[in-house]
């Protein structure tokens, strides 16, 4: 009976440790709220085992601020983060590990515009 209990607990543990979606705050930006926004160009893709989403924002500081704010919410979860202001503008990068895979999140702010993306293996988002 003891053996059974140990095996059962191990099975339960492995189920609970099973792939969990990362539920990133930045993912919420792709809930369709900017689909009709002329200042935003949205790209969504799931192909060849890669998950990719991006937003190009043109001259809309309000939306850029929201993106930045969502990015800040995810930054404590990042295994590695990088931020630098240089010639090409301001670069913010996060690397979040989920299910043993890396999720790259990037934001480039330049001349009042922004390019924001989330990219990683699909396994990382399951």
């Amino acid at each position: 009976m003891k053996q059974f209990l140990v095996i059962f607990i191990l099975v339960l543990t492995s189920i609970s440790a099973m792939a969990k979606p990362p539920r990133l705050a930045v993912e919420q930006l792709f809930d369709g709220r900017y689909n009709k926004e002329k200042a935003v160009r949205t790209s969504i893709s799931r192909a060849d085992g890669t998950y990719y989403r991006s937003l190009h924002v043109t001259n809309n500081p309000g939306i850029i601020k929201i993106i930045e704010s969502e990015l800040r919410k995810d930054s404590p979860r990042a295994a590695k983060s990088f931020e630098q202001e240089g010639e090409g503008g301001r670069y913010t990068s996060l690397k979040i590990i989920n299910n043993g895979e890396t999720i790259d999140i990037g934001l480039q702010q330049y001349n009042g515009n922004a390019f924001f993306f989330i990219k990683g293996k699909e396994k990382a988002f399951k």
Partner: protein
Amino acid sequence: MKEHDVKLTLQETEQLCRLYMDCQLTVLEEIELQYVLGKMPYSSPCIDEVRMLMGVAITMNVKESSKKRFAWFNRKTAIGIAATVTILFAVGLALFNNPAVNDNDSFGIYIAYVNGREVSHELSEQQVKSDMERADEFLSHIAELESREQEQVENFINHIEQ
């Protein structure tokens, strides 16, 4: 006493219980009553009282029956169940992660919105691919910036140490 012998009515059982209370049963009859009370589901104040007095014997019966009930549930069965659950879990997980099982994975999804409108599949694919290239450039640029910064830090530390 065999099981087919135990066909007493409630009244007969009560009668036996009253005789037991009056100490009018022989030792053998008491044992038989004990057996009957363990087997029959009858209940009345008199029967319950006798059952309570014979509590030890009844408890033993209950233990035996519970043992019988779970006799099939031995270690081998437990390991078998656990192994089955594990195999099912592993197969399920493998199917879940198999790209061929998921139609979306095998064909790929490309969706793009430009100027507040969804664009055609072909244009979406082009836009997504071009954006992905830009993301890759971004990541290589970040890697370059990081290595430059690291180099600067190392130079600074070396300079301080000298």
